[in-house]
C-alpha cells in the first residue's frame, strides 16, 4: 500500500517513528555527554508527541496521562538530573573517543534492517504501519543496547537504558494503542524509581572510584591475570 492512502494520523505516526529512529542514531554517534542528553530529551519529546497523537486519534484518554508522564519524566526530570551530574563531575568538556565510530554506525543501520527482517512474518497479520512502528521500536531498543556497549560513561549507560525504555513505550503506544492503565502506571513508577536509583548510584560510584567510567568497575573478574 501507498503512503498517500493512509490517513493523517498514520502518516504522522510513521514520520514520528522515523524521527525517533533518527534520534537513536544521533545518540549512538554522540561523544559529548550534554548533547547526548539533549538528543535523549528530544527523543522523549517525540515520544510524548506520539502518545498525545495516539490519544487524540483514538480518543483514548488515559494515554494523555502517560503522555504527560513521559513529558515529565523523560523530557524534564531525567535529562535535568543527568545534566546536573555531568556538570557536577564537569565532564561536559571532555569528548568520549568512540572506538571505530563508523563501524558502530553501520552496525546500527544493519540492526534496523535486521529488525525489519525479524518482524516481517508479522506483516501479513497486520498493517504496514504496525510493522514500521514495531520495527522502529525494536531497532531503537537494539540501538540503545549498542549505545551502552559502545559508551564507557555511566551517564551514557543511563541514557541508553532510558532510550530502550523509550523504544518500548513507542511500541506500546503505536502497536497496541497503549497498555492497560495499571501497567502504564507501574512502568512509569519503575522508571521513576530507576531514575532516583541512578542518582544514588552515581554518588556511590563517584565515592568509590571517583569517576563514572564503567570500565573501571572491574574488580569482580575471574580471568586469572
Amino acid at each position, binding site marked *: 500500500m501507498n503512503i498517500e492512502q493512509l490517513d493523517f494520523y498514520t502518516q504522522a505516526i510513521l514520520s514520528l517513528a522515523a524521527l525517533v529512529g533518527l534520534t537513536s542514531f544521533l545518540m549512538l554517534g554522540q561523544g559529548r555527554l550534554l548533547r547526548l542528553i539533549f538528543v535523549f530529551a528530544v527523543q522523549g519529546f517525540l515520544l510524548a508527541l506520539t502518545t498525545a497523537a495516539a490519544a487524540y486519534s483514538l480518543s483514548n484518554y488515559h494515554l494523555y496521562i502517560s503522555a504527560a508522564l513521559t513529558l515529565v519524566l523523560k523530557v524534564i526530570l531525567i535529562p535535568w538530573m543527568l545534566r546536573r551530574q555531568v556538570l557536577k563531575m564537569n565532564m561536559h568538556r571532555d569528548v568520549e573517543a568512540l572506538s571505530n565510530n563508523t563501524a558502530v554506525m553501520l552496525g546500527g543501520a544493519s540492526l534496523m534492517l535486521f529488525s525489519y527482517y*525479524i518482524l516481517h512474518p508479522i506483516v501479513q497479520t497486520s498493517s504496514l504501519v504496525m510493522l514500521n512502528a514495531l520495527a522502529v521500536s525494536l531497532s531503537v531498543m537494539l540501538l540503545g543496547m549498542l549505545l551502552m556497549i559502545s559508551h*564507557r560513561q555511566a551517564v551514557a549507560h543511563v541514557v541508553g537504558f532510558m532510550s530502550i525504555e523509550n523504544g518500548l513505550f513507542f511500541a506500546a503506544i503505536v502497536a497496541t494503542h497503549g497498555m492497560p492503565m495499571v501497567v502504564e502506571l507501574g512502568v512509569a513508577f519503575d522508571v521513576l524509581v530507576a531514575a532516583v536509583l541512578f542518582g544514588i548510584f552515581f554518588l556511590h560510584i563517584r565515592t568509590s572510584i571517583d569517576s563514572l567510567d564503567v570500565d573501571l568497575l572491574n574488580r569482580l*573478574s575471574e580471568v586469572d591475570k
Partner: protein
Amino acid sequence: MILVLAYCAVLLSFASCLPPLLMQGRHNLPALGRLRMPGSLEEQRAQILTRQAVFGLLGLSGLFAALAGVSVLVSGEVMTGRIGLGLPWLPWQVRFDNLSGLFFLIIGIAISAVSLYGPGYVSAYEESKHPFAVLSLFSGLFIAGMLLVLLADDAFFFMIAWELMSVASYFLVAFQHDNPANRRAAFLYLLMAEIGALAIILAFGVLASFADGFTFDALRGAGLSNAWASIAFALALLGFGMKAGLVPVHVWLPEAHPVAPSHISALMSGVMLKVALYGLIRFCFDLIGEVHWQWGLVLMIVGTVSALGGILYAMMQTNLKRMLAYSSVENVGIIVMVLGLSMIFMAQNQPQLGALGFLAALFHAFNHALFKNLLFLGAGMIHHQTHELNIDQMGGLIKRMPKTGMLFLIGCMSISSLPLFNGFVSEWLAFQTALQVDVIDNGVLRSLIPVAAAALALTAALAAACFVNVFGILFLGLPRSRHADKAQEIADPGMLAGPALLAGLCFLFGIFPGLMLGLINHVAEQLLGASLPDGSSLSWLHLAPVSAEQASYSAPLVLVGALIAAGICFRYLRRSPATVMRRAETWDCGFGGLTPRMQYSASAFMMPFRRIFARVWLIDEQVKKDRQGAMDQDVAAIHYALQIQDHSWPRLYQPIERAVNRTARLVGRIQTGNIRTYLGYSFVTLIVMLWIIS
C-alpha cells in the same frame, strides 16, 4: 516372617545410631544436664555403656541378618513387600530372594564379628578429638544402607540405598579428618562413588527407557536390542566395577580403606565390595536377562587384569592396611573373572557349567568376606597394640601376641589358598570350571580361558608369596622397632572373639565346604534356573562339582591323613629322652652378633619380584651414599629411598583432572568483570536467538 527378620536387621542397624546421640542430647540439654551427676567416673561408665549398647545392637542386627539369610536360602522362596516411602506413585519395592539372602548371610557374619570386636577397639579413640557419636551414627547408616541395597526391588530405592551406603562410608573414611591424607582419600572416594553411581543410574535409565516404570520387574520385562543391552552392561560394569575396585578404576580403594577405623575398613573391604558384586550380578544375570559371551569375555579379561594387578601392587605395599586393600582388588578380580567364565558358559548354553562358575564365584566372595574381615581386624589389633602400620617396623610379634598371631596366620593361609582352608576350595572350583573349556565350540574362548586359568594360578602363587612375606615380617624374626618390641597381647576378650569366630568359620568351610555350597546351589537354581551338573556331589565328605570321574576333593580325608602322618612321626621321633630340644643362640653360619637390622625387610623380600615384574609399577628407587675420607673412598652411610606408584594415576586420573581444570579456566574467561562485555553477551544472545527462530 523371614522378611520380618530382614526388616529387624535393618531397623536394629538404624537403632544403633541412637544411643550416643541420646547421650549427646543429654549433654547438650541443660535441663537434663542438671540431673547428670558429676564426676568423670560417671562419664567413663556412661561412655562404656553407650559403646556396648551400640555394638550390642549392631551384633543383634548382624544376627538377624544372618538368620534371615540362612532361612531364605534354606526355604528357597521369594518374598516381596513394599515400604510406604519413596515417590508418590511408586513406594519402595522390596524383594528378598536367595541371592539377597546369601549376601545377607555374608553381611550378617561380618557384622557380628565386628560387633564383638568393636567395643574394645574404639575405646582407643578419645571423645574430644573423634566423637564416638559420629562414628556410630555413620556405621549404623552404612550397614543399613548395605542391607537395603540387597532388599531393593526398584531402581529408585536401589540408588537411594546405594548412595546411603556410599555417603555414610565416606563420612567414616573422613572420620579422622585431622589428617590431610584422610581428607584427600575421602574426597577421592566420594568422587569415584559419585561417578560410579551416575554410571549405574544411566545403566538403569537405559533399561527404564525401554521398560514402563523402573521397578525391577518392569526392567526385567524391557526388551532391549543387543546394542542397547551392551551399552547398559558396559555402564553397569563401569559403575559397579568402580565400587568393587576393578583395575583401572580401583585407585580410590587403597586410599580409602586403610584410613578408616579398622573395623570399618574390614566392613568396607570385606562386605561393601561384595555388595557391589551383588549389584553386578543382579544387573547382568537377573535384570538384563540373557547374557552374551562377549560380555563374559570382557568380565574375564577385566577380572584377570585386576587379579594380577591387585596382587602385584599389594606385594609392594609396606602399609599393612593398604596391602590388604590391594589384595581385595585381587580377590574381587578373581571373583569377576570366574563370573565371566560362568557368563560364557551360560551364553554357550551350558547352563550347568555356568552354574558351576557362578557357584565358584559366590563361594569365593563368601570366603573373601570371611578372611579379609579377619585380616583387617587382625591389622586393627596390631595397630591397636603397636600404633604402627608400617610392616617394616614390625617383627617378632608372634612371641608378644601369640593369639593374634595364630588368628592372623589362619587368615594368611586361607587367603593364599592353601588346602584345608576355604580359600583353596573356591579357587579349586574356579580351576575346575576353567578346565571344562572343552565343551565350547568357539576357538578363541577355548584358547583364552586356559590362559586365564594359568593367570589365576600365577595370582594364587603371588598371593602366597605376598602373605608369607607379610606374616613373616610382621610376626617372625626380631622386632624392628621399639613399638613392636613393647607390644602386648590384646587384653579385651571381645577383640579376640570376633576374629576367632571368623577364623573358625574359615577352617570350618575349608573342611566342610559342602555345607555352604549346597546353599549357594539354591541361589544358582533360582537365579540361573540351572544347578550343578547331574552326577556331581556336594556331600560333606566328597566334593565332586562336575562328576566323580572328573575331579573330587575330600578335605576331611586330607585332614585325617595329615593328622595321621604328622602324629606318627611326631610320636616316633620324640620318644627318646636323650633328644629333647635344646635352646641356644642363633647359629647363623657362625657369624653371630645378629641384630634386627640384619634381617630381610619386606621390600628386600620383594626385591626379586620387583626386578622380574619391573614394568608393572612406576618404581623410583634411589640409593644415596655419604662418602668420606680423603678420596671419598669409604662410605659412611647409605640412604635408600623406594617409591612405588600405581600406573593408573598418571595414565588415567591426572589427565582427566587437568582437562577439567583447563576447561574451567577457559570458561572462567567469560566472567571478564567489564559490564560492557556482559551487555555485549546479552545483545548477541538476543540477536542470535531472533535469527534462529526466524
